[in-house]
């Protein structure tokens, strides 16, 4: 019996219109056989988490290139906890300096991918981590 494909929400938050990276990642995940929901621009953390819950998503990938990552990533983590969705694998990327990436990972973001990260590395991460989540949650 074939398993239902992994389902991933790719999101853009705040006022940041740089959507090149988000779209490329969305395509790459889709090409790797996953179902991808792209939220479009200007979403609030609340909307992003709601979308993920409604779509029964295994993971959320958030892309931020505006410098607002230290505000918006923690807000999504907060929303995941508040809506009892902490099992959804939350990862992200963008122009994020290394020490901020470290801080975000400690705050509950599972991985941060910065410019130049190979697509395959991201695809592998999502398949591995969201696959584990699927096994646990079913």
């Amino acid at each position, binding site marked *: 019996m074939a398993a239902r494909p992994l389902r991933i929400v790719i999101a853009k938050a705040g006022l940041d219109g740089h959507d090149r990276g988000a779209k490329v990642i969305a*395509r790459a995940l889709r090409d790797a056989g996953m179902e991808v929901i792209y939220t479009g621009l200007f979403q609030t953390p609340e909307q992003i988490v709601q979308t993920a819950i409604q779509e029964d998503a295994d993971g959320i990938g958030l892309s931020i290139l*505006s410098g607002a990552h230290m505000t918006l990533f923690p807000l999504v983590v907060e929303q995941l906890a508040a809506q009892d969705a902490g099992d959804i694998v939350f990862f992200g990327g963008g122009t994020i300096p290394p020490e901020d990436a470290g801080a975000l990972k400690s705050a509950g973001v599972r991985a941060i991918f910065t410019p130049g990260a190979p697509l395959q590395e991201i695809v592998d991460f999502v398949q591995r981590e969201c696959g584990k989540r699927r096994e646990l949650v079913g």
Partner: protein
Amino acid sequence: MASHVEPRRFYIMKQVLRDPAAEPAGGAKREVPAPARAGARKGPGSGAVDRTISDVPLKTVYGPNDIAELDLTRDLAWPGEFPYVRGIHANGYRDRLWTMRQFAGFGTAKQTNERYHFLLEQGQHGLSVAFDMPTLMGYDSDAPQARGEVGKCGVAIDSLADMEALFDGIDMGDITTSMTINGPAAIAVAQYVAAAEKKGISRHKLGGTIQADILKEYIAQKEWIFPPRPHMRVIVDMIDFCTREMPKWNTISISGYHIREAGSTAAQELAFTLADGFAYVEACVAAGMNVDDFAPRLSFFFNSHIDFFEEIAKFRAARRIYARHMRDKYGAKDPRSWKLRFHTQTAGCSATAQQPENNIVRVAFEAMAAVLGGTQSLHTNSMDEVLALPTEKSVEIALRTQQVLAYETNVTNVVDPLGGSYYVEALTDEMERQAEAYFSQIEEYGGVVEAIEAGFFQKEIAEASYRYQRSIESKDRVIVGVNAFVKEEESHDIDLLKITEETEREQARAVQAVRSRRDPNAVQSGLERLQRACRDPKDNLMPHLIDCVNAYCTEGEIVDAMVAVYGRYTERSIF
């Protein structure tokens, strides 16, 4: 993970010399064989070396056959002559160097003002304002949408008070200012005029440029406010006002930069940008303006990416296409209306987070391409922009790069030094051919606005950017430090500039203070008159905007008043 690759020499001189087409021409017509040399080069990237970064197939060498169609008088001429492919000035940079203009802005107006004083002291010629995201999207710093974004990507300008602080101690009649803002561009112009006039400097004396290119926002950058049609009306009103009242002001900077950064090819950047430019020309003419009244003050803004010759060809093609269309299609009679003037910025998307010092070298090549392509002004990116806002040190290196180029390399001595190169001329033709093909496609949609509404540009760009990323993944294309010549365990020891949360709180307090000390009646009546003008297409919006700004209406309030009439745009997401 990328593995470590040994550096390799890429010389292929022997093969080139054996190519028959490389022999002296001697008038003999000989078909240059398309070289099939896959595997001629060993090492990373061997699969893609025969195409430009935008996928234009390349021959090993170019010869007379490749420019057989080129008519020297019709297609090339001299610099300063129609169709200006060789440049808009007969003497190139001998008469006047390009303007070194570094884009800057962060935090509060006061912080950015200090950076401006520093840049002017370093010998920079003009200022260039980067606004933060809330300002670009029409939100005040204390709006919920602004959380986490205030002062991050640029400076926060909420009201006239901020614009005054931004230019404190700077003679606005003496410098030129470029403002990179689009959705609220008309408001920014109103603020700039009001700030200068409060210092006693007439709007007639203000020199500079505002980007105000809303079409490319829908296509690529996504900083829109209203839907395309009413937004075009706002832009046309602004162009009309500036044409009449601000004789030294360049009314709009039609921008390919962001289209390229969003992942387009060089040909797409060229085609979509010029198509946007022509759409503004058509809109202004439709509004009753005479093309020769406004066209001389339209300018363009291009990206300079890493594929050296392709970029030069793109700049040259842009001038020729523009000149032809302006004269032959739009009937412009004044030669100034035929000349495409442009600003260039090196490609942010070509910079890498890995080994960021390498970006200094990339920027130098990209800057040289822009200069050999005849740019009128140039911004060189700082090496650390891929990581954060640039530090003062890295901004200085970027400016020094331009100075070395201008004063040491001697490339400024001869105009269009690559003119007549078989390769560059053939590639220039190819760029023009591809652009014309895109113009036909856009026309089939019914025009630029219709093509935007159909998602045409967005889809083309998404395709191109995905293809490009794939070519890096497969190592068909080498990016030094990213998929080849990788250093493991890389650590950054460059300082990064940080904007603190305190900036956001300070700016929010400041805008609230402005609201509490102004005359509420003037605010109310100003906004009402503005809304009436929004409903009346015959009433130019600009004088009403200047009134609102002078009453210290905030940007967010003005935008909200206009959104109440025009609505806010939402896009269909395509990936």
